[in-house]
């Protein structure tokens, strides 16, 4: 929002703060074309394949005149499809035998095709590990000496029907390497917890991103895996579809409000094209303990998106099935933690959350409590001044009335 590279040394550079304040005060998030106040949100594992169960999770959010589809899957790789349609009657159609074949094109579709307003995908391709010892240069390109990355295409994933909970609209994909040669994941796993919401609100645990019925949340948790060094940092490679020749960019929005994520004054946002389209939102913070407090908060760096050739990435069947094989990908890396401060090594735990949605991204507003206290804090002295003025006036009146008698 504030497009200045300089950290606000001069105040001419970062002028729009009053506007920022204003936009924060206008609490009602402007709902975009697709945004609707109420949606019927359902979450189900897509049935129909006669063989062993396959992980295909369908979140369908039906509004009065639109439907949002999120299709999560760990087939091949953890990936998600986002499809927005302008009818409440659109549905997901899966041709299992084609989807599971080596040529999955058109194995998965959202119908009717002419109702589709927007579609994109995210693919989680690799888990990085870096050795951050002896890294003194903060500006270095890599956070440390890289170990060979774990390819998520070589992970095996549990059956989501075990963790699927229709009441909380959540499900967890939990995976570990198929060939765990170093035995790093004997007691460990990498999990992707997906949650949809039927109303807007905030989770209890930080980073407490504001969610609506238009969005779903992904929580990535790495736990128990033995790191390959004493000072290992982990990172995640994420790929997305590019709509044109250029990659979408990550915006870093600075805000004044850190009430929901103490001491984090930034919100990162990836937008596909101009609004309203799809978005990914996250706070640049990860946590090294289950109890996510400020003492376990790690910084989270994001690299710029760069174009990647499709064949250099492992393919996700659902993305190929929906978009075909002629697609351009852009990839970016997230890195969690720094060589100093808390880290994964504390408790062998790392968690990070992001919000995925279509329409206009939710906008944070000052909480009613803050506004209430400010109103009292500003109002009380104001009232005192007013009251004081009145008393003074009356006093003067009395004085002038008594004077003639004296």
């Amino acid at each position, binding site marked *: 929002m504030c497009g200045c590279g300089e950290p*606000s040394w001069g105040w001419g550079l970062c002028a729009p703060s009053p506007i920022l304040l204003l936009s924060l005060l206008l609490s009602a998030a402007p709902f975009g074309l697709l945004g609707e106040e109420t949606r019927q949100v359902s979450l189900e594992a897509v049935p129909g394949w006669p063989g062993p169960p396959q992980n295909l999770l369908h979140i369908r959010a039906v509004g009065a005149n639109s439907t949002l589809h999120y299709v999560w899957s760990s087939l091949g790789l953890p990936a998600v499809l986002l499809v927005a349609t302008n009818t409440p009657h659109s549905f997901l159609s899966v041709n299992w035998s084609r989807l599971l074949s080596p040529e999955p094109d058109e194995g998965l579709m959202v119908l009717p095709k002419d109702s589709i307003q927007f579609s994109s995908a995210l693919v989680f391709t690799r888990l990085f590990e870096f050795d951050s010892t002896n890294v003194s240069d903060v500006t270095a390109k890599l956070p440390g000496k890289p170990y060979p990355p774990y390819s998520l295409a070589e992970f095996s994933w549990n059956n989501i029907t075990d963790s699927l909970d229709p009441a909380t609209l959540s499900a967890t994909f939990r995976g570990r390497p198929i060939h765990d040669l170093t035995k790093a994941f004997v007691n460990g796993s990498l999990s992707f917890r997906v949650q949809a919401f039927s109303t807007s609100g905030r989770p209890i645990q930080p980073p407490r991103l504001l969610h609506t019925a238009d969005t779903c949340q992904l929580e990535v948790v790495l736990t128990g895996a033995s790191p390959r060094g004493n000072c290992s940092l982990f990172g995640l490679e994420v790929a997305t579809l590019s709509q044109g020749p250029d990659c979408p960019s990550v915006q870093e929005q600075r805000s004044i*409000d*850190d009430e929901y994520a*103490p*001491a984090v*004054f930034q919100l990162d946002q990836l937008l596909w094209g101009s609004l309203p389209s799809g978005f990914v939102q996250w706070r640049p913070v990860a946590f090294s303990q289950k109890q996510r407090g400020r003492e376990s908060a790690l910084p989270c760096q994001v690299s710029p998106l760069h174009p990647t050739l499709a064949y250099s990435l492992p393919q996700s069947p659902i993305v190929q099935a929906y978009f075909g094989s002629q697609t351009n990908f852009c990839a970016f890396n997230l890195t969690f933690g720094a060589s100093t401060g808390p880290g994964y090594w504390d408790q062998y735990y790392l968690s990070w959350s992001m919000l995925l949605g279509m329409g206009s991204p939710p906008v944070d507003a000052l909480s009613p409590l*803050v506004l209430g206290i400010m109103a009292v*804090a500003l109002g009380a002295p104001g009232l005192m001044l007013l*009251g004081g003025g009145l008393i003074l006036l009356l*006093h003067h009146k009395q004085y002038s009335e008594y004077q003639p008698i004296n």
Partner: protein
Amino acid sequence: LGSYFCYDNPAALQTQIQRDMQVNTTKFMLLYAWYSWPNVVLCFFGGFLIDRVFGIRWGTIIFSCFVCIGQVVFALGGIFNAFWLMEFGRFIFGTGGESLAVAQNTYAVSWFKGKELNLVFGLQLSMARIGSTVNMNLMGWLYSKVEASLGSAGHTTLGVTLMIGGVTCILSLICALALAYLDQRAERILHKEQGKTGEVIKLTDVKDFSLPLWLIFIICVSYYVVVFPFIGLGKVFFMEKFKFSSQAASAINSVVYVISAPLSPVFGLLVDKTGKNIIWVLCAVATTFVSHVMLAFTLWNPWIAMCLMGVSYSLLACALWPMVAYVVPEHQLGTAYGFMQSIQNLGLAIVSIIAGVILDTRGYLFLEVFFIACVSASLVSLLSVVLLYLVNRARGGNLNYSAKQREEMKLSHTE
């Protein structure tokens, strides 16, 4: 003056302490609270102890020893990775710290009485603030040097750094010894009396305090708690919200002290010349209010807000404390000042803890809003004083007399 250097040691090393000792902000702020607790009581008895029990020379030496031991224990807590030991160290440090200031003032009075006392007090305050400033900017650097020479960061590094910081306390102990020697010699040569604090404190006086005095207490407490705990927690705030580097954040965090060092004597003179204390206090509180609002709700360069806060803090310090003298009969003055210092310390201790809790659970914005509410309380009580004054003007209140009026009044009293 070494004690001022060490008072803000925790603020200068906040990130390092929290990382190396693995404590959250709530526990970190306890370091400040433990400093304040003993002073809640000691402010009453510090003067008494100096006057009646130790005498000023021994008093200064003993309190200096306390400060030294406290800092050493604090540092040992770091070396042995025992946070409770660090807290205990701060407690001992606090026992000595504030009373040492009283002793210092007594020396100043006994040596400069009837001469340039105001200037001396101003300079003393300046020295104290310079100590704090140097600490803010030096400790981080010292920590990185020790880290480099020990080869790794950790609680040992922290302890060693604090131990080196403690050298200043030893210096101040040496100064205390030298002072005692000089003072004794002066007494022998000039037949000068040993200095007395002149504070006679009677707890029973408390019930006779007038409403304006209580309001002044409220102003004092609610003002000081928005400045000192904020500075204690400020460094991370500037780094996270305004993306300052560690050094720049230390620098801006110490700007309040930097400003108040040269301005205290100037404002002291200004308030002395013009009188009108209430107006000055009102200006100071309102300015602080504005600066906290700026810090909370804008991304403007925080130097502006911090400089404003520095100016208003020095103004308030000069204008508020003398105000007490106008609403209290002279024989209760000692009690009033002791009480004021005591509840100020109580307020600082409690608010330090609250501030830590708020920061850990609700973040900096909420903390700022809390501080704004405190300043607002201070503003409200101040306006109440103004109202009382306006209503009672006929009865001859004298809080807001100009210097000239005051002079006349003095004359009429002496006649």
